[in-house]
């Protein structure tokens, strides 16, 4: 039994974060992501100086890329955190491998998402007006509106997702502190580890807190997406005014987040040499889960068609114009990418080929983006009034903003992979020790 030390060796993971250099590939990726963030700054400055006119939105298309991308990013964040939280609560073996970076992906996505609702306000610097503060005019926010719930939803989402990530990170930061050879690393990691010394009494409370925060994440995720969906559903737009919309937005968001987690798992395995910790069985499970979420998504799409056919003529007409009208390619692109193609991963052989899983994962994320576009823009094609203006099409300023948030997402993940353990080390040790026990 004394030779069992190899079983709980997580030094490889810690040393990734402590390595003095990360190679040219990392620097190139970092530079590309930083360029993206610069583009984001440019897009935001242009928006602030010129105003919302730089976007392609106009009546009736009052929402465009702002809401499309917001709902899309939130979907990725939600599915990634949902996945991580369920693994932690169920103490599933897969958690050791993927929950940490699923949480990180969720955090990066929620940061990217949170920008949009602020930027789309028209006068973003006054966004704090939605907070109930004692104003001179003695007016208060209208809490009977879904738009105000959204402020609380996003704020809580950002804070609780960060907490979930950080609580799980504390013991691993202590490991980094203890393995660091350089003084500044010891100090920085030591500060963020809050003096964690691994007392078994502390562990008991830490585990309770970690699983509790994981459990608290779950209702929050449903609430955040549901509120976004309600913002659409409470309008009188025929295609949006449906009780099924929250289910649609929550359910179809899941393949995008799982697709991103799958892609990240492949990339981490390949670039950081972590095959031992994210093993083939983990990839297998992740692939099947992804395919299953796509199947659930297919059921939601089928439900949409059935509901539309049973609904009143206006709703039916609106749905048909979304599926077969001007924005039809978006609808069908979404249907194929999020529901049909991921089904390929039911084949065991295909689940282990990165050249298959990566395009499918990214494809699902793109597919959900098309679905949001189809919903936000396509849903307005048939309204109660005849449309006189042109169709909505994003302008260069909107595309630059999207690329910028992608840059922000990638930058956050790169920094995460560089500076903190990408795999939960204490969970890995725990798991290995349980496996050794008879």
């Amino acid at each position: 039994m004394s030779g069992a030390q190899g079983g709980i060796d997580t030094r490889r993971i810690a040393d990734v974060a402590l390595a003095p250099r990360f190679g040219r590939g990392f620097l190139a990726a970092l530079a590309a992501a930083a360029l993206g963030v610069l583009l984001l700054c440019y897009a935001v400055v242009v928006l602030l100086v010129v105003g919302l006119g730089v976007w392609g939105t106009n009546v009736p298309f009052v929402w465009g890329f702002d809401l499309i991308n917001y709902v899309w990013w939130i979907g990725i964040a939600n599915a990634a955190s949902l996945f991580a939280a369920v693994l932690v609560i169920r103490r599933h073996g897969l958690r050791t491998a993927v929950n940490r970076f699923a949480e990180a992906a969720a955090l990066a996505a929620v940061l990217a998402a949170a920008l949009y609702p602020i930027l789309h306000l028209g006068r973003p610097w006054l966004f704090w007006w939605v907070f109930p503060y004692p104003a001179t005019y003695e007016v208060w926010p209208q809490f009977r509106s879904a738009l105000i719930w959204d402020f609380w939803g996003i704020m809580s989402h950002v804070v609780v997702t960060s907490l979930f990530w950080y609580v799980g990170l504390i013991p691993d930061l202590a490991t980094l502190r203890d393995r660091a050879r350089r003084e500044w690393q010891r100090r920085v990691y030591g500060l963020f580890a809050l003096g964690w010394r691994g007392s078994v009494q502390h562990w008991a409370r830490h585990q309770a807190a970690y699983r509790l925060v994981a459990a608290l994440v779950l209702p929050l995720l449903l609430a955040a997406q549901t509120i976004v969906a309600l913002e659409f559903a409470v309008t009188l737009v025929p295609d949006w005014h449906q009780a099924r919309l929250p289910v649609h937005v929550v359910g179809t968001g899941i393949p995008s987040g799982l697709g991103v987690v799958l892609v990240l798992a492949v990339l981490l395995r390949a670039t950081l040499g972590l095959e031992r910790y994210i093993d083939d069985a983990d990839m297998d499970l992740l692939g099947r889960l992804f395919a299953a979420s796509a199947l659930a998504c297919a059921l939601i799409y089928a439900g949409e068609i059935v509901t539309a056919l049973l609904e009143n003529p206006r709703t039916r007409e609106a749905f048909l114009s979304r599926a077969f009208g001007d924005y039809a390619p978006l609808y069908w692109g979404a249907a194929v990418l999020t529901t049909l193609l991921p089904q390929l991963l039911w084949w065991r052989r295909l689940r282990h080929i990165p050249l298959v899983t990566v395009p499918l994962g990214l494809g699902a994320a793109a597919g959900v983006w098309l679905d949001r576009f189809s919903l936000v823009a396509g849903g307005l094609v048939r309204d109660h009034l005849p449309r006189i203006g042109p169709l909505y099409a994003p302008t260069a300023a909107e595309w630059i903003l999207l690329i910028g948030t992608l840059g922000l997402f990638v930058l956050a993940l790169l920094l995460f992979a560089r500076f903190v353990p990408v795999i939960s080390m204490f969970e890995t040790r725990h798991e290995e020790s349980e496996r050794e026990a008879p």
Partner: protein
Amino acid sequence: MSAAPPICGVIAEFDRAEPMIGALRAARAAGWPDLDAYSPYPVPDAAKILGAHGAPVGWIAVGVGLFGAALQFGVQVWLNVFDYPLNVGGRPLFAWPLFLPSAMIVGILWGAVAALVGMLALNRLPRLHHPVFAAPGFERASQDRFFVCLFTGRPGFGPEAAAALLRDHRPLRIAEVPRA
């Protein structure tokens, strides 16, 4: 050893969790007043021997979460029903179902923050320094070793008694923890 600086405890290092649990059990049986164990991952059995459990964290989070939700609900009612009643197409002012979503969300926010803060407070963290950090080899408590520390100082529970008790469980090493 008499010329050495004053010590506050004796610490034993193990390479597995089982002897650590054994040593803890023996120290508890001997009535050792002040002791702790350190491990690289949660060892629930050891925590049980020391009488620590996670339930208080849960109660703190639930209590604070419910308080936060009630506060949010109350604030909404006060703002939208009493202080600034706004008639929107004759809809009821006290539309309580519409006050529930943000009450729930903010309750969860309070609960999650309370889980973290409560856990830290019960653990007396953040505390960046602690005497055990000075024990030789203690950096491996966060990697792959298990430690039992018997704090000395009370009459009858001196360093010699501690070392004798710990030695029975065949630790890799026994060291004294200097007083910080």
